[in-house]
């Protein structure tokens, strides 16, 4: 077995996935360890040019007009060394009337002092659909600093859905910065689920501009902090066109000495637009806690179960 294949297998083991999924010729994939391309496979209509940089990679991805990928595209970004910087530059263009779903794993299992920096530029063509699920698996040592930022342009009638999950291992520091512009009849969904503990620091900044008529946007953040972890959540949704509709939903659980601040900004600049906001921040609900304790769970196990539910992936 080649060293690259061994590394791919190790990475997939860390994310509880089967590397043989990549054997399917209809499944496109890109596997990166630090700045090295370990594996790449494309399918008709999907183009990807990858350059290895000194500290990461630059990938230019393009999906042709009218191309519908039935199978999820797998991306895996790993960093095995304990220390170092991984910079990922992604330039994505989705043509018109196309559809793609990406499953991305970022795995830093041994990190003591690792920075993972992701710059994304994403353009989604008219009536296309782009969904991106990003799961992070970090070391238990808290030595990862993650800086994902992306600028997204969602064309007329297009859909952009992104989901960020970091509930395994320590967060370390995460600083998310996403900003999307939504044109007429487009749909934006941003969903973030993160669990922090010890001295983890979580910063989430998600901004949506509903600039086209009938554009819709939903920003959802679910954060749990325990011990001395801190979280700052900034969600901003503005509607400047008729019939634009939006909703901001923050649910944050704070335990022990954790601190959460949530700043929701909802701005309506057109009399026929409408945005709502809902937030709940606090410790675990006492009735939930006592319900589970009355079934025999310890307080700690009950809290764990409640938080795992809150942060679980919502069924579609």
């Amino acid at each position, binding site marked *: 077995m080649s060293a690259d294949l061994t590394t791919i297998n190790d990475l997939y083991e860390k994310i509880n996935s089967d590397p043989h999924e990549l054997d399917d010729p209809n499944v496109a994939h890109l596997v990166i360890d630090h700045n090295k391309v370990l594996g790449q496979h494309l399918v008709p209509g999907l183009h990807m040019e990858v350059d290895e940089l000194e500290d990461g990679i630059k990938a230019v991805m393009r999906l042709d007009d009218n191309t519908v990928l039935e199978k999820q595209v797998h991306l895996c970004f790993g960093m095995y060394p304990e220390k170092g910087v991984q910079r990922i530059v992604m330039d994505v263009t989705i043509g018109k009337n196309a559809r793609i779903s990406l499953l991305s794993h970022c795995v830093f299992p041994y990190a003591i002092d690792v920075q993972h920096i992701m710059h994304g530029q994403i353009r989604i063509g008219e009536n296309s659909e782009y969904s991106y699920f990003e799961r992070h698996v970090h070391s238990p040592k808290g030595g990862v600093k993650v800086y994902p930022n992306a600028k997204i342009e969602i064309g007329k009638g297009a859909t952009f859905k992104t989901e960020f999950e970091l509930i395994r291992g320590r967060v370390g520091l995460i600083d998310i910065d996403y900003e999307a512009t939504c044109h007429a009849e487009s749909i934006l969904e941003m969903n973030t689920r993160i669990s922090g503990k010890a001295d983890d620091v979580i910063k989430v900044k998600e901004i949506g501009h509903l600039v086209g008529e009938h554009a819709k946007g939903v920003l959802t953040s679910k954060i749990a902090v325990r011990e001395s972890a801190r979280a700052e959540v900034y969600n901003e949704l503005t509607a400047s066109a008729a019939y634009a509709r939006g909703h901001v939903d923050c649910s944050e659980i704070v335990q022990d000495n954790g601190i959460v601040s949530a700043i929701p900004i909802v701005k309506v600049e057109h009399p026929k637009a409408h945005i709502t906001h809902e937030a709940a921040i606090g410790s675990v609900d006492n009735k939930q806690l*006592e*319900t589970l304790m*009355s*079934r025999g769970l310890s*307080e700690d196990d009950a809290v764990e*179960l*409640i938080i795992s*539910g809150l942060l679980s992936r919502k069924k579609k």
Partner: protein
Amino acid sequence: MGVLEVKGLSLNLDGKSILNRLNIDFWEGHVHAVVGPNGAGKSTLASTIMGLSGYRDFEGDIIFKGESIKELDVNERAKRRITLAWQEPARFEGLTIRDFIRSSAKDKSVDNIKNTLEEVGLDGDEYLMRAVDKTLSGGERKKVELASILAMEPEVAILDEPDSGIDIESIERIFEAVKVLKSKGTTVIMITHSLAVLNQAEHAFLMCNGTIVDKGVTDKIRNYFEDKCIPCPHKNIPRAAETGGRA
């Protein structure tokens, strides 16, 4: 002697006497009903037996199988297999019905979890992976609560208003579930306003103004609903709606 004995229980909340030197024995493996008007202290009694926060500072004692459980936390009482089904059960965002029931189940297999759902009238395949959240109706949530109690196989199950929010067609399934509990030797304590629920019990206690004013076989206590309120020095006059049109 009962399996669960409440002895001289007095509890004040916000300076007001809610339970007043209350004594009850619940018999092992029997189905009991505690009936009475709003404000009589029925749900407070349930919360105090379970040891919920806010209901721990009381006079008297609660004895389970000869052992005082007064100082035990909620989960320690649950580990002795005493449990409570809430009148309005909590909702848990994102937590699946499977994981909710599994957390308390004695047999944690998926088959057993599905079976308990079927026992309360819910399709196991359909409901297993649904969340215990606001997408469930009040009646569905009550059934899931009862299913988790069945899966726990408790020694004492306190069911607070087990029929509230349950549609007419489903009430019989709830009563069947009570029979399942009894068949497994569980001591059942139902807190209720309902004649239909009272009729499922073997023994009943009429509670008023924080104390027991009458007790006995169910037929004896049924008069409370069918005829008149038992004369007592209570301050809570049952409203007509709560007594089937009679005060």
